[in-house]
Each structure stands twice: as C-alpha cells, then as structure tokens.
C-alpha cells in the first residue's frame, strides 16, 4: 500500500483547516480507509481537541522527529474509529522544531501502512506552512466566501505552484446560501472565477459544527447534518469517487452551475 498525503492549508487563519482535516479524516475512516492526521501547527495545536483526543497525548510530532519515541508511540487511536490516528503537534515548542525534510521522512514511513495521511497546516506562509506542504502529494486549499480569505488563498496557490507541486484543489467552507441570495456574501462561482482551480467541495455554514468541535466529536459522524454530509462527500471525492455536489437550501440552480463551470474548465 502506498498512502497518499494531503495537506490542508489556507494562508488566512480561522477558515476551518483544522475542522476540515478532522472531519475529512473521520469521514475517510468511516469509509474503511486507514487514516493518519498530522497536526503541523506546532505551538498552537488544535486538531487533538477537535478530534476529542486531547487527554490522550503522551508523545508528539517533535518527540518523533527528535528521536524521543518511535513513530508508533506518537500515534493516538481515535476512540470510535480504530483506523483513524492522530499525530499531535508539540504545544511547548515552535515551528522551527521541525524541518520540511523531517516531515517528508515521517510521511514516507506512514505511507506503507495507511491509505491517507492528512496534514493540518498552520496559517501563514512561513516555516510552518513550508513544513506542512513539503510532504504533500496533493494540496487542498480551504477558503471562506470572504474577500480576505480568497486573497490569501490566491497567494497560497501561487506559493504551492512555485514549489513545483500539482495545482491545488479547493474547498469553500462556511457558505451561507441565504446571505449569497441577498447579495451579502460572495457566491461560490465568484470565488472560483478568481482562483480558477478545481473545486472539491462546498461546506454550508452550520452552527452545529461549532458545537461538535467544542465537544470533540466531528460533525462528519452526524448523519443528518448538511455540513457533515458535505465533508463526507469531499472524503468520497478524495477516494476518486464521482459524487454530485450538494444542493444547498433554497437555491437549486447555483451549485449545478458550479459543476458546469468545472466541467467546461476541463478540470
């Protein structure tokens, strides 16, 4: 087995990288895939909290890199999904504790026994970001339908391309359909027009995401949630399945139009 490494990044903070990593990881594990999530946000770790594994941390990524433990010892198994693991970040260190080549080495070791290695990137474009994208086979950009987030996403796409990686794909997170209809929020099409990369998911704004994040139980496990469904669909798409885009409330036409744009773009 040769697992695929996917890095979730955004440039701007607070757009939902950690939430997306946790939920997509959970959804992939539910599909029966072997998944490891790595928190690359050293010094500001969060992925453990969102996955509800905070109190189980003994060793972390920096311990692995500095040889204080074996890789296996730093991998925390999820409470409900036996095929989902987390390698947490160190909280008491900073980004310089790990180098891009360390990340490549850790991921290469994980590839043999796992289908997916998901890396949660820190915000920014400095060392932490470079650590996170160095081992990536695929980069997924998370953005919100908000000008500043889209600007940063554009910058990140340029930086990923400069590293001679494949063109990244896009997730638009926290789209509020009724605000788009009122003209108070940028539509998904406009985000796509500017960024011009392949869209792999649109996640609707949903208050219950916050609740589930605080509880440490990813929304992807909740059958009825639309946001959860969106994350599950993204996971299926990452496995190569062709899943139609969700019809979000009220506006039946617009996501259909997005998928048309993608097809005509040849992506």
């Amino acid at each position: 087995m040769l697992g695929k490494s996917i890095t979730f990044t955004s440039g701007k903070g607070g757009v939902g990288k950690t939430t997306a990593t946790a939920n997509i990881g959970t959804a992939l594990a539910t599909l029966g895939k072997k998944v490891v999530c790595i928190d690359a946000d050293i010094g500001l770790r969060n992925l453990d909290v969102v996955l509800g594994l905070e109190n189980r941390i003994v060793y972390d990524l920096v311990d692995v890199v500095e040889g204080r433990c074996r890789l296996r010892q730093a991998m925390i198994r999820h409470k409900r999904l036996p095929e989902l693991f987390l390698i947490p970040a160190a909280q008491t260190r900073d980004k310089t504790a790990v180098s891009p080549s360390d990340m490549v080495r850790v991921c290469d070791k994980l590839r043999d026994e796992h289908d997916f290695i998901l890396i949660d990137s820190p915000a920014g474009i400095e060392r932490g970001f470079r650590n996170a994208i160095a081992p990536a086979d695929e980069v997924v950009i998370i953005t919100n339908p908000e000008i500043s987030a889209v600007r940063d996403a554009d910058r990140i796409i340029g930086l990923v391309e400069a590293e001679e990686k494949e063109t990244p794909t896009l997730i638009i997170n926290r789209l509020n359909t009724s605000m788009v209809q009122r003209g108070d929020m940028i539509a998904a099409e406009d985000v796509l027009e500017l960024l011009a990369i392949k869209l792999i998911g649109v996640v609707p704004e949903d208050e219950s995401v916050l609740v589930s994040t605080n509880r440490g139980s990813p929304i992807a496990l909740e059958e009825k949630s639309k946001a959860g469904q969106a994350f599950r669909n993204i996971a299926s798409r990452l496995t190569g399945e062709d899943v139609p885009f969700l019809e979000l409330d009220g506006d039946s036409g617009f996501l259909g139009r997005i998928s048309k744009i993608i097809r005509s773009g040849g992506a």
Partner: protein
Amino acid sequence: MPSKVQIKGIREGLLVTLGEGDWPEINHALMEEIENQADFLAGAKLILDVENHILNAATLGKLRDTLSGKGLSLWAVLSNSPTTEQTAQTLGLATRIHQPHPDEEKRPTDTPISGDEALLIRRTLRSGHRVEHHGHMTVIGDVNPGAEIIARGDIVVWGCLRGMAHAGAEGDEDAVVCALDLSPTQLRIAGQIAVPPDERGERLPEIALIKDGMVVAESWKPIGS
C-alpha cells in the same frame, strides 16, 4: 584559484558570492564554509549572489530550508538569470538589495524600446507575484488582486486585470494598459496613479492612457471602426 564561496559583511547583512562550477560542488563548498564559520555566522541574514547559476524552485527552496535549519535566514537572492530571479521572487525572497547589483548599472536605461522587446507571460499571476520588465509586457491569463506587473513600455492583459499594473514605469507618458477586463486595484502610467471607480458596468475590453495629464479608460475599439 579564487575560493568558491566568498562572504562579506554589508549593511543589509552578509553577502555570500558563489563562484563558477557545478551546483552540487558549490553547494557543498557553501555548507562547508558555513560549518567553519558557524560562530561568526550565527543568526545572520544572508544575501546570496548566485551569479550565473540557474536554480529551480526545489533547489532554492531546499537551500533556504537547510540554511534556516542552521539558524541562518536567507532573505535575498541576486542572480544574473531572470529565471532564477523569478523563482526567488515566487518563493518570497528579495532579488534586489539597497546596494545596486553590479550588473544593474550596465543595463541600458535611456535607449528607446523597440517593438520586439516584450515579455510574454502565459499564466495567471496570483497574489504575491511581481513581474518587472524593461520592455513591453503581455500576459495571457489573469492578473489577480495582490499581483503587480511593472513595465517600462505598454501592458496588455489578455484576461482580467484585477491587480496593480504600472506601464511606462520609467516615465513614458505614452504608455498604455489594455485588458479584456480592466478592473485593477490600482493603475499607474508613468508618474500618474489612478484608482478605478467601484461600480463598473459590463465587462468590456478597455484601454487606459494618459489624456490631458489624467489617466482615463476608454472602451477598446479596433482602429478605423
């Protein structure tokens, strides 16, 4: 034989000049020099003059990471190769320091631009990209907000211009900027700076030029129609 790596202190940091030779060899010599002078170099800001070496993004990125692993920060790369300069720029490194690069002085600055001195860019320029050219510039693709294109001559964007464009950057008031969709964040022609109005109607090809000392945009019509 001159040494492969020369290090000297300048106002902006430490200027490291790399000599001729195969890249692996030079790279090795550089690392050795850094090991030898570890105490002197600790925490330094490096300006790397790679002269004629052509470095791709992977090599340059790796070098930057190796250096930062040794506690050195690489902030600028000087190069005689435009390719390497552009690679350095996309990686977020400076390619000019305050002190002019020796070669810069040799560049002709007052010769008229002939029609064939143009740079063609066939990709979308994203936020953070900056392209400067001493002739005309044509972009086939979009120029996104946060990207900057600067030309001594005219600028043509076969796509949507949403970023900053500066035509006639060295004072040519006859320079023009045209785009299929002219919606720049800011437009500069020679010494004039213009900010387009917020509300725009239909997206039509437009041309911006200086008329009576002001930058104006007109819809583009084929000559003679």
